[in-house]
């Protein structure tokens, strides 16, 4: 059984049919990427998984359990943690306070302290800047903070929404290295990206989304070599 499974999910913004019956699976231990252009429904898919936008039709299951019976704030208890698009750090709170809020649902102080150490090992920069207001960090540091904060809930699966957005290429590289590292340490990753080239380099499998529908699903390697993907998303002729 897959860790996360979306089956024939339809979602709407008012009357706009944003997701037109998408199905996808993420197996335990995988990095799965969801690539596609602007407005393809990538972020919407993540909003559906976290029930910020409950699906009108279809099911979202985690380890076989239907997630639609839960509200957004309960989803994190089930082991799903999101790094929102545009990072969404709490700008006026300090780095440490942001990280602590990531562990908001937990009360085992010992384990939280361990996870904080783990985040600080992954992102030494955050340790240096733990007393600083998050809004004063650089873009890359904010992205690290958003990822670190999501890890603080000890998720089974980490949902990443465009972690490369607005970052310098060198920073994108190091963020993607860290995502791989997180995955090696045992966290499953669902990675939503416009930067298909980078995403397909670290992912095991990928889905290509176009206007609310999945048009391709394959291993990352096959997708990299797929002619349509190369033309449309990798900019190769």
């Amino acid at each position: 059984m897959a860790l996360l499974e979306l089956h024939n999910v339809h979602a709407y913004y008012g009357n706009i049919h944003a997701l037109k019956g998408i199905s996808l699976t993420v197996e335990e231990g995988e990095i799965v990427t969801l690539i596609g252009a602007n407005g393809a429904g990538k972020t919407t898919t993540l909003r559906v998984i976290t029930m910020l936008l409950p699906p009108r039709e279809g099911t979202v299951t985690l380890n076989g359990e239907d997630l639609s019976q839960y509200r957004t704030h309960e989803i994190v208890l089930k082991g799903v943690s999101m790094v929102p698009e545009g990072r969404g750090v709490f700008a006026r709170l300090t780095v440490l306070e942001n990280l602590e809020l990531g562990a908001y649902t937990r009360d085992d102080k010992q384990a939280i302290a361990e996870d904080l150490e783990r985040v600080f090992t992954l992102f030494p920069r955050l340790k240096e800047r733990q007393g600083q207001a998050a809004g004063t960090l650089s873009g890359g540091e904010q992205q690290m903070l958003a990822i670190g904060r999501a890890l603080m809930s000890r998720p089974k699966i980490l949902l990443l929404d465009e972690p490369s957005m607005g970052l310098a290429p060198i920073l994108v590289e190091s963020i993607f290295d860290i995502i791989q590292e997180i995955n090696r340490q045992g966290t499953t990753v669902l990675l939503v990206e416009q930067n298909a080239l980078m995403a397909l380099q670290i992912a095991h499998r990928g889905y290509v989304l176009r206007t609310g529908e999945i048009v391709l699903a394959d291993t990352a390697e096959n997708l990299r070599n797929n002619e349509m993907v190369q033309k449309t998303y990798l900019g190769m002729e």
Partner: protein
Amino acid sequence: MQATTWRSTIKAGLLTGVIALYVALTGMVLSLSKRPVVDKLSLGHVVYMLVFVVMGYLTARRSSWRTTRPALVPVQGLVVGGIGAALLALLPVFGQQVDLSWIFVTTKPNLYKFLLFNQESMAVGVAYLVLTGAALGGIAALLPILPEVLHQGLLYGAGFTLLLGVLSDLAQRTVLKVVLKPLFAYKGLKPSGALILFVVLSVLFGLRHWWLQRQRERSTMEVILGERPAWARGVQQGLLLGFLLILPVWLLNKDAYLNSVVNLVNLYIIMGLGLNIVVGFAGLLDLGYVAFFAIGAYTVALMTSTGDLGHGYTFWQALPLAVILALVAGVVLGIPVLRMRGDYLAIVTLGFGEIIRILANSDWLKPFMGGALGVLDIPKPALGNLVLKEEYQLYYLILAGIFITWFIATRLYHSRVGRAWQALREDEDVAEAMGIHLVTTKLLAFGFGAAFSGLSGAIFAAKVGSVYPHTFNLIISINVLSLIIVGGIGSLPGVVVGALALVGLPELLREFSEYRMLFYGIALITMMLVKPEGFWPKKLNVYSRPQDDTGPATP
């Protein structure tokens, strides 16, 4: 380059004239002319002259010549003040030919006489006015090109001298009166007194600026973080506490009016602390805050009144119920607005505030709540045999209220729910994705905020002795919100500063009360333009504190 600078200078002058005309036409000049500040110079003079000063100063501050051609900067100020004054002079010149009073009711001959310094000849009066404007603009424009220490010293020195002059009756009654007395006339400052004060204050503020600058240059981490050692903070807090405790004995019991102003300010502080939880901590814009104040006040009124409507309970029995009822009302109001954000939330809460007032005013509830006639004969709170009937006794009751609410607000801020509020304020969706339960978190904010307001209302009812529905109008909500914004959203000391500035000052300057809304408007606009974070903002940690527990940070 040169031409553009001159053009913008002339533009600033025209703007100055328009503002000065506006100030004159509101009638402020005349109605404030009865309060002398220094000798014959009244607050009325000060108000329109300040326009020239401020505009001259701002022009100089922004001038591109400030560094390149400093000698020309005062000339700019001169031009700005001169043009402004000349425009203002048009008012009496025209006004005496054509009757404008059917448009502007304030354009009376005595306004013209006042603006022309009571000169017989119009030409002389106009010349005086234009020269005054030009001189004030020029002098003000000198400040920014002076060395910083002089600039800051003179600026604050002049400002505080004026303030002392305006508040002369208050200043003369303080413990410093022995020192200050010779400087003051019966009302306002003596010219010599003003000069002495100005020099002394300028030197003091100059020294202060010099000291702060030196501190900044030495810039240890403690200075950057603005932290003082624990003992220094202890001493400071002790002194403040002592001051607050002896204030009535020392000053307030001799002046019932001042005392009632202070008590009013303090009641607003309690409300401000409450609304600060809702607006400042949790970022929920609530415009119906007066409703909970009314609920607290009516609860105490109806339970304790010795009149027909009352039920004969004591204040102390009524107080907890007032707070609880307000809290419940806060939660109940919270439920329908849970899904609303920003503007929508503001409108709905605004409606709720009106509903409570209209209910209290209604014929339907008249048998229970007294309708428009209100509830009278509310007894003063009693401690054993001691009835707190004097304002200075009530002062302590309100002060206790402030301490309690302050303590709770601080604790809440650093608690788990406080964190959740802040997360909510920053980003509702992300907060929810972190596992924060939006419903309980929001309702807690509304509940606590309302409870504080209920406490304030309960004491208010006992203090005033009667409550009427029309007391609880929208203006109170707006006052509380404005004082939070002016003080600095989310900051507890900011609430105090805001309450003093927006509630205390207008009460002390009774002539201002007519222009209170104008005053609020100006204060809010200036605030948003110049210091959007408020007078006493919550400090943002821009620098990281060196970590004491972990040793040197790993790169």
